[in-house]
């Protein structure tokens, strides 16, 4: 029997639930020559801010058991280049869901950036990043308080009449369910979780942190059980769709994340280890579904 991989996310039909996570796949364009992007259900683009940013000094990446920590610091060419150059170029070659990932340093900046994304024809969904751990005063400051997360959500929803708005949550909080509920109450159309865990590595010979920015976001297979638990808790507490993210590295992980309640699944750190991870996962899904007697992926969402 032909397997149905499609899912409905925030009013969009995705051909499959597999989406490279923001920051781990550039603007899609960087990989266009190496693979058929059109096998991907969606692409979450690199996080964008109002002005162009170089980001943090190098080293920005450190290896860890079961993953890595990064502190890229939102390097991006700015919102105008995103909507005028990157998205139109990707739209020409890609027919799946284009997800704009938006950051900001103030509620006003989030509003302004999201309004631009909402007005950009090629963008299908807006993912608001209130959880970047690598930029001082940006992102995470808004994602660790239910009140601030709700304030950003309400502000951006006012200026996004056309596109579904998902809020990307941080795991660096006491109670992620409280923040998820606050975003839902403030009008969010969906949630992406989780972003990275704040972590460190030291160079013990030099007695210094490996990363120039001292700390960074930990991600990779080691965080999968925690991400799965958080997706399970949030999906069962809220009534809006969830994109599950965190340590996903195989088709089986995608199925597990969906069983926890994810409607779509983002793959992050694994793309760095294997640039072909997302297309490989998509191609493996039908045989995993066959083995598990799943005809349609829609049937397993939040089945546990």
């Amino acid at each position, binding site marked *: 029997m032909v397997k149905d991989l499609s899912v409905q996310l925030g009013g969009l039909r995705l051909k499959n639930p597999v989406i490279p996570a923001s*920051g*781990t*796949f*550039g603007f899609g364009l*960087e*990989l266009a*020559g*190496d693979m058929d992007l059109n096998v991907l259900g969606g692409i979450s683009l*690199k996080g964008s801010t109002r002005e162009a940013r*170089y*980001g943090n000094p*190098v*080293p*920005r*990446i*450190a*290896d*860890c*058991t*079961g*993953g*890595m920590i*990064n502190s*890229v610091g939102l*390097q991006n060419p700015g919102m105008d280049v995103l909507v005028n150059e990157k998205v139109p170029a990707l739209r020409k070659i890609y027919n799946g869901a284009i997800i704009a990932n938006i950051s900001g340093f103030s509620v006003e900046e989030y509003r302004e950036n999201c309004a631009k994304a909402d007005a950009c024809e090629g963008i299908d969904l807006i993912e608001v990043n209130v959880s970047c751990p690598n930029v001082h005063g940006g992102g995470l400051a808004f994602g660790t308080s239910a009140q601030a997360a709700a304030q950003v959500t309400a502000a951006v929803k006012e200026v996004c009449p056309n596109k579904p708005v998902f809020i990307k949550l941080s795991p660096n909080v006491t109670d992620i369910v409280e923040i998820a509920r606050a975003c839902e109450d403030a009008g969010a159309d969906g949630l992406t979780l989780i972003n990275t865990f704040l972590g460190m590595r030291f160079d013990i010979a030099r007695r210094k942190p*490996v990363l120039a920015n001292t700390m960074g976001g930990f991600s*990779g*297979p080691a965080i999968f059980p925690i991400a799965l638990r958080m997706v399970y808790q949030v999906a069962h507490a809220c009534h809006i769709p969830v994109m599950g993210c965190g340590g996903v590295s195989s088709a089986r992980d995608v199925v597990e994340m969906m069983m926890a309640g994810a409607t779509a699944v983002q793959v992050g*750190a694994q*793309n*760095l*280890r*294997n*640039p*072909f991870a997302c297309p490989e996962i998509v191609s493996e899904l039908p045989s995993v579904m066959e083995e598990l007697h799943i005809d349609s992926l829609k049937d397993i969402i939040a089945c546990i």
Partner: protein
Amino acid sequence: MQKKDYTVTENRLIAADTYRLVLSGEGPVEGEFVHLEIPGYFLRRPFSVCETSQDGLTLLYKTVGEGTRALANLPVGTTLSVVSGLGKGFSADACRENALLVAGGLGAAPLYLLAKELKAQGKHITAILGFNKADELVLQKEFEALCDQVAITTLDGSVGIKGFVTDALKSLQPEYDYFYTCGPMVMMKAVCDMLSGPGEASLEERMGCGAGFCYGCSIQTTNGPRRVCHDGPVFKKEEILW
């Protein structure tokens, strides 16, 4: 960019803490460097290509950390996942007639790949290879087979000229119209500062994806931010902000 499995056919200590790794598999590799998956480690490790063959490639590496120490323990016959076709290498065409190659330590490895290309183009090559001590010396015979002149320097004088590669540049005053350098940053900076002619240097940085999409190795240059893995690792000397 391609991802393929290769088999370790040689992994042998050839100098102090320095190994020669020969991989064979389906066809030759392209690109300036390869990204190797080392069993047990999450991120791949980038290595400059030293030599290519019909069915694979040769790398030289130093055991400098956990990943390279684990690599050194892999026996012949191990299968390794290799991402290749990465990086922008040296521009051999930029040299009209006389090339000057200046290496520090294992910087000699990618310069050997370049030397073969320059030789095939009929260019004259002077190579200066610098090491700390005689026991680190690699590729001397290989360079001598391709170059018009090869000078070795060691910091302790245990072989060749005593001192830095810049001391050899001062004493030899080699004729060149384009230079190429690879080695530690301080050494490349000294070389670029000393040589007034045009040239380029191969940089090194901790990398994530190795293919230009994670922005983990972006550095500031005179042309704005550039990814070492994709826009480099080789940059023109005037682009580099030391």
